[in-house]
């Protein structure tokens, strides 16, 4: 039981895909202008990760080894199309703010990375836990970056304004994304080196 729990939690902290493994940088920088956007993108990616991990783990003995990468990409692209159409249909405001980054989940290295490194070698239940853990770790990282940028950039937490005035606008714009991300990774490095 303990090992099952560790599969789930390793994605959250020890092997956090964004902050420790430095994967999936484009959406982490592109959509995190607010904490809500970060959570939306994170959950969409989690859905794709869980579904593709489960299906790939289910089909791992059927897919020939030579064509496994193209097969993985087709499976991932299918689930990305599903979540893309669902978000466009039911959450048009979120689709508007995430824009291009929803179809780009296909080329997110985290998803293909987990398919290749975990789901193609492990059973269905473990793959589900792995996908869920990694997805939630990604969501947590995106939330953290979005939270910092929103707080510094517009003085708000989850769209509720706490500080009057404009805030430091640069943090909502493109340069702020790079700088906030750089400092968060530096803090994570510092904590790891302390241990």
């Amino acid at each position, binding site marked *: 039981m303990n090992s099952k729990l560790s599969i789930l939690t390793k994605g959250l902290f020890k092997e956090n895909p964004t902050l420790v493994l430095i994967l999936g940088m484009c959406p982490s920088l592109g959509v995190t202008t607010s904490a809500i956007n970060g959570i939306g993108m994170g959950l969409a990616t989690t859905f794709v990760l869980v579904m593709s991990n489960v299906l790939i783990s289910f089909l791992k003995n059927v897919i020939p080894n030579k064509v496994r990468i193209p097969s993985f990409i087709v499976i991932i692209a299918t689930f990305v199309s599903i979540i893309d159409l669902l978000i466009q249909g039911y959450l048009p405001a979120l689709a508007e703010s995430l824009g291009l980054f929803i179809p780009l989940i296909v080329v997110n290295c985290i998803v293909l990375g987990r398919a290749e490194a975990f789901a193609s070698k492990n059973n269905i239940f473990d793959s589900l836990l792995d996908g869920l853990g990694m997805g939630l770790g990604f969501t947590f990282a995106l939330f953290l970056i979005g939270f910092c940028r929103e707080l510094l950039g517009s003085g708000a937490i989850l769209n509720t304004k706490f500080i009057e005035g404009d805030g430091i606008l640069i943090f909502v714009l493109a340069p702020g*994304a790079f700088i906030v991300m750089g400092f968060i990774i530096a803090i994570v490095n510092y904590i790891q080196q302390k241990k």
Partner: protein
Amino acid sequence: MEYVLMIIGCVLVNNIILAQFLGICPFLGVSGKVSTSLGMGAAVTFVMALATLVTSLIQVYILNPFGLQFLQTIVFILIIASLVQIVEIILKKISPALYQALGIFLPLITTNCAILGIAIAVTQKPGFSILDSTIYAIATAIGFLVAIVIFAGLREQLELVKVPKAMQGVPIALITAGILAMAFMGFANLV
């Protein structure tokens, strides 16, 4: 004139890396040296122009007439992946010298989100002809080339500087990129 403005816009104002956040992985991964970053930039330019031309043709002549727009993501990623393979094989046969220079970057490009991103972005722009799309893709790719080469130059200098231990590697590179993005914001109202 219209195209000149479009090119300036794509290279300086709406730079694909520094303003749109596409293609960050190669931007951080292959920017250690100016020479390798030039190779990567050239390979991206070549593939992006070709991929956008092919995907816009498919979009206009196959997906749109048959109402298959929902298949866009799957079709495009498969086209890009196979295109990269074909380019690699052809290049190996025709120009071994060019293959030597670009070869190692080509497999990396399949998962470069800038290629898929631009291929999808041009289909969402109203009234873009296939020629417009291709020029847009080339201009964007030149923006990528400019950004990655400047950034590689900065990182070469950064090698000589003492950086706190926790900041070494990715964090300081990201902060440098942030300052570079700030410099590019100076072009904001150019077009």
